[in-house]
């Protein structure tokens, strides 16, 4: 028995016995069933990495705003208005995972490719333009596939 059991104590025991009872009730094996889904995922996932000319730091919110601005430049306020999520952002490695609806995939991808400068407000008046590039490492309809990128396999 692992540590979780001790932590949860009585509650855990009760849960456990409940589950055992339920498991005993449907002990009969599952019958074979096969389902084939086409385009089941409504989302596409992208793994991207950022490259700056100079060393930069930015927060997740800044990154998202940066991408939204890029979208607005290319597709305008009407075409660029679609939701996407910044699922994860690694501020040290500057890599991120994005989630977007299938209908927005092409727009987001093209906007990311065309992003070339990052506005960094150093002081209140002057706006510094920092050159940067976004590299799209992997695109997949399954988030699970992003963690198994065989092109990243490095052997020395």
């Amino acid at each position, binding site marked *: 028995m692992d540590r979780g059991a001790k932590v949860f104590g009585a509650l855990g025991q009760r849960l456990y016995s409940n589950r055992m009872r339920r498991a005993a009730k449907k002990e009969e094996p599952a019958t074979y069933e096969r389902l084939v889904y086409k385009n089941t995922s409504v989302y596409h996932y992208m793994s991207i990495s950022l490259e700056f000319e100079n060393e930069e730091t930015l927060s997740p919110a800044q990154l998202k705003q940066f991408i939204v601005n890029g979208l607005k430049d290319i597709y305008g*306020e009407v075409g660029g208005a679609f939701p996407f999520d910044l699922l994860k952002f690694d501020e040290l490695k500057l890599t991120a995972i994005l989630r977007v609806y299938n209908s927005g995939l092409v727009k987001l991808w093209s906007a990311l490719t065309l992003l070339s400068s990052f506005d960094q407000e150093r002081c209140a008046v002057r706006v510094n333009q920092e050159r940067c590039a976004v590299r799209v490492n992997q695109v997949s309809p399954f988030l699970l596939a992003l963690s198994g990128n065989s092109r990243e396999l490095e052997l020395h």
Partner: protein
Amino acid sequence: MVRLKSRYLLCEVCVSDRSHLLLLDDGTVQNAAKHALIQAHGDYGFAHSIFGFSVKYLNAHTGIVLLRCRKSHYRLIWSALPFITGLKKRGQKVPCFFNCLHVGGTIRTCQKFLVRYNTQQLHRMLPLCHSEEERSAIRKSVLSCTVQKDADADSEEDIGEED
């Protein structure tokens, strides 16, 4: 024979002060539409729809504008029109908005629509006349342009008299 199909957007420019309408010209309207396109659809939408986009007809007195664009992308321009908030002319900014009256496949259908539209407007506005003199003045001006076939610049009907 395959023809390159176009769409014509018949719009009316609405301004608060009608004297500002006289400032209108092709370049101003085209510029305003281009800016609205960039704002609403970005570089991508602008590049898509700007080919074949032109101002075909403009009446500075009545504020009627006829825009021509490619059939495949007329929705882009159509949806960008509400984003026009003003016209810039020689440093002067005239606040206005575009009211799209009709979308047609040929100039001829747009013209027919405009004649019908203006007739309706006339019928709607005639009962609002305050006095008999006003009414007769209007009747006179309408009759005068139809009989003489003279392009009376002040008449709302003049688009019907051309062609």
